[in-house]
C-alpha cells in the first residue's frame, strides 16, 4: 500500500507538499452526505486532499463544514458516501482507532487533569511506556512553548494557553490527520493572529495533512494550501487562496472574499465575456461575465469596495452618487455611497469625502464580475 501511496501522491499534489518527506495522509472524500432530520448538512461532497496538505473548509455557520469534520473524526456517521485515508475506507474504523488529532472549538481539555496529564492521555491510551510518555509529553509541550505549565490545570490557563494545550494533545499522538474545528474563534484578535502563525509554523514543521474548519476568510487565506468553500452542505469551489480570491466562480464565493457590493442585474447584451447589464434605477454597467451567464437572464453583479473609483461630480461620466458616511479604517476610508438611482455601494478611497458630497462612481469592466443567480 505504501508504494502505491508514494506513486499516487506525487501526482498533482506535489506543488503543495509542505514537508517533502511526508507521503501519507492522502484523503479522498466521495459523495459524502449527511442529513439531520429534514436538514441536509452535507450533500454529496467530493474532495481529494493530498498528503501533507493544509485544507480549510470555509463557509458561514451552519453550512455543514463542522459536520464534515465530525465525519472525518468518526464522531458522526455519514448517511452516504465514503472517506478513504491512503486508499483505506474509514467507515468501519471507530474514532478511537482512527488516530486523528482533533482540536475542538471549545478545546475540550479534561478539567480534572493537569496539562501534562491531558497531553499524556492519548499516549497512555496507545499503551506507550511511561518513560516514553514523559519524554514525548515534554517534547509536545515544548513544541507549543508550554514546557513550564505541565502541572497547571486547564482552568488556570488563559484561552491562548488552553489552545496550545489542545494542539499539543492532538499532536503528541503523531496523528495521521489533524482536524481543527474553528480553533481560533474563542480568542481575541491579537491572540488569534499569534496562534495563526503558530499553527502555520507547526504545519510547516510537521507536514501533517490538516483539515481546518473556519468561517473566517482571512484565516483560510493565510493558512491554507487550498480552500474548500461550502454552502448549505454543497461544496461550491475548491482552490488555492489565490484562485478563490481572484477568480470566484459564484457570487457566494465572491461575497466571502471581499466583493462586498453584490446587486441584482439584468443581462442586456453579451460580447464574448463582456456583459452589458442594467441594475435597478436604470443603472447601466459593463462587466465581465462568469460561466453560466447568458443574455437576457437575471444575474448578480459583484465588485470590491477598492475597485470602485470615486471622482468629484461632473469631472467624468459615471454613476452619479452621494456620500452617505465615511469611516476611517487605518489605511483608507470606507464610504457608504448611495447612487442617485437608489442603489447603495461600499467604496474604499484614499481621499476623505465629507457626508453629502456629490460624486461619480466608475468601475473598470474587468473588475465588475457578473455571476449567474445563486
Amino acid at each position, binding site marked *: 500500500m505504501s508504494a502505491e501511496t508514494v506513486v499516487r501522491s506525487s501526482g498533482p499534489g506535489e506543488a503543495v507538499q509542505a514537508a517533502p518527506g511526508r507521503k501519507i495522509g492522502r484523503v479522498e472524500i466521495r459523495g459524502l452526505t449527511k442529513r439531520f432530520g429534514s436538514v441536509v448538512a452535507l450533500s454529496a461532497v467530493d474532495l481529494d486532499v493530498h498528503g501533507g496538505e493544509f485544507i480549510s473548509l470555509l463557509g458561514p455557520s451552519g453550512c455543514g463544514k463542522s459536520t464534515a469534520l465530525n465525519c472525518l473524526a468518526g464522531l458522526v456517521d455519514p448517511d452516504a458516501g465514503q472517506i478513504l485515508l491512503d486508499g483505506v475506507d474509514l467507515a468501519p474504523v*471507530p474514532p478511537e482507532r482512527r488516530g486523528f*488529532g482533533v482540536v*475542538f472549538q*471549545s478545546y475540550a*481539555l479534561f*478539567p480534572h*487533569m493537569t496539562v501534562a496529564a491531558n497531553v499524556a*492521555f492519548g499516549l497512555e*491510551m496507545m499503551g506507550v511506556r511511561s518513560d516514553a510518555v514523559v519524554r514525548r509529553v515534554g517534547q509536545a509541550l515544548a513544541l507549543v512553548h508550554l514546557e513550564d505549565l505541565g502541572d497547571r490545570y486547564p482552568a*488556570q490557563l488563559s484561552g491562548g494557553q488552553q489552545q496550545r494545550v489542545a494542539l499539543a494533545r492532538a499532536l503528541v499522538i503523531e496523528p495521521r490527520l489533524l482536524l481543527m474545528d474553528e480553533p481560533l474563534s474563542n480568542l481575541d484578535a491579537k491572540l488569534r493572529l499569534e496562534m495563526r502563525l503558530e499553527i502555520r509554523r507547526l504545519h510547516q514543521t510537521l507536514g501533517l495533512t490538516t483539515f481546518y474548519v473556519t468561517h473566517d476568510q482571512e484565516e483560510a487565506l493565510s493558512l491554507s494550501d487550498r480552500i474548500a468553500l461550502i454552502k448549505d452542505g454543497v461544496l461550491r469551489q475548491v482552490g488555492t487562496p489565490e484562485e478563490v480570491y481572484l477568480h470566484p466562480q459564484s457570487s457566494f464565493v465572491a461575497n466571502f472574499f471581499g466583493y462586498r457590493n453584490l446587486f441584482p442585474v439584468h443581462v442586456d447584451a453579451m460580447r464574448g465575456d463582456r456583459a452589458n447589464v442594467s441594475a435597478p434605477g436604470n443603472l447601466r454597467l459593463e462587466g465581465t461575465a462568469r460561466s453560466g451567464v447568458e443574455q437576457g437572464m437575471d444575474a448578480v453583479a459583484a465588485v470590491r469596495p477598492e475597485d470602485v473609483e470615486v471622482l468629484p461630480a461632473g469631472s467624468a461620466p459615471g454613476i452619479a452618487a452621494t456620500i452617505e458616511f465615511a469611516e476611517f479604517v487605518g489605511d483608507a476610508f470606507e464610504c457608504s455611497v448611495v447612487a442617485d438611482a437608489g442603489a447603495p455601494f461600499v467604496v474604499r478611497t484614499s481621499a476623505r469625502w465629507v457626508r453629502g458630497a456629490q460624486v461619480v462612481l466608475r468601475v473598470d469592466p474587468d473588475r465588475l464580475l457578473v455571476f449567474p443567480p445563486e
Partner: protein
Amino acid sequence: MQRAVGTQASGDTGPVTSGAPRRWGPLLPIAPALLLVLALFVYPFLYGLNLSVHPLGALAKGGMLANYAAFFGDPRERTSIWNTLRLAVPVTVLDLVLALPLAYRLRRPLPGQRVITGLLVIPMTLGTVLLAEGMIEFFGPAGWVNKLLLALHLITTPVQFVHNYTGVFISLMIADFPAVFLVLLGYASGLDPRLEQAARTLGAGWWRRLRRVTLPLLAPGIAAAAALSFVATFSVFPSAVLVGEPAGSTRVIALAAWQAAYEQYDYPRASAIAMVMAAIELLFVAAVLAARNRAYQGPTIGGRG
C-alpha cells in the same frame, strides 16, 4: 442601600445611611436562612450536646460521659449502630449504582424523557408512611409480588418481604432513589459531551472513557448524592417501625434514641445517642468528601469551558 434620589437633597441623611448598612448589606439576603440555621440547627445541637453530658439518675455520678459509656457498654444499644449501617450503606451504594447509568442516559433530551424522569421522581412525593402502607399490601403474604412469584412457580410458600430487614431495605431504596437520581442528573447534564468525544479521538474505548473521564467528572455529584443518601437513610425511623422488625434486626439508632426519650423519659441519654448518630454521619460525609478529592483534583468550577 442608597435612598431614593429625591430624598438626597436633604443633605446629611445620605452618608449616615450608607455606613454600616452598606458593609453588611450583601449579607441581608442570606440573613433569614442564617437565622433559621442558628435557631433550628445550631442551638438545638448545642442544647442536645449540653444535655447529653449531664446524665440523669444512677448515671449522674458516672461523670460527663456516662451516657456515652452506657450506650457503648450495652450490646443491645451498641448493635443499633450496626443495624443502621447495614441498611444505610448498601441502600446508598445500590441507589447510586442504579441511578448513575439512568442519570447518564437521561442527561440529554430523549423521546419520552420527561415521562421517565417523572416516574422516577414520583416516590419522593409519597411520604414514608404511605409508602409503608402500600408496601405492606404489595409485598404482603397475599400481595401481588407473592401472588406473581407463586403463579410463576418460583416459590411454593409466600416469602416474607415485610416486617423484617428486607422490608426496610426496599422501603429505603424506593424513598431514597429520587434524591440520588436528581442530584446525579443535575451533574450528568452538565457534562460537556465534547470531553468524551475528545477522549474517544485520543483512543479511549467506552470503559476507559468512563473510568478516566466521565466518572471523575461526576465524582462531585456522586459524593453529594452519597452524602445526602447516607444521612437520610442513617436517620431512618418510620419505615424501620412500620415495615421492619423494630424489636430486633431493624432496631435502628434513631429508634434507640426515641425509646430513651419517650419510653424511659431519659432526655440526656437520648441526646447522647443523637450525638453518636451525628458523629457517624459526619464521619461518613468527611470520608466521602475525602474520596471525592482523590478522584477529582482539579478546580471544582470553570472546568466546562
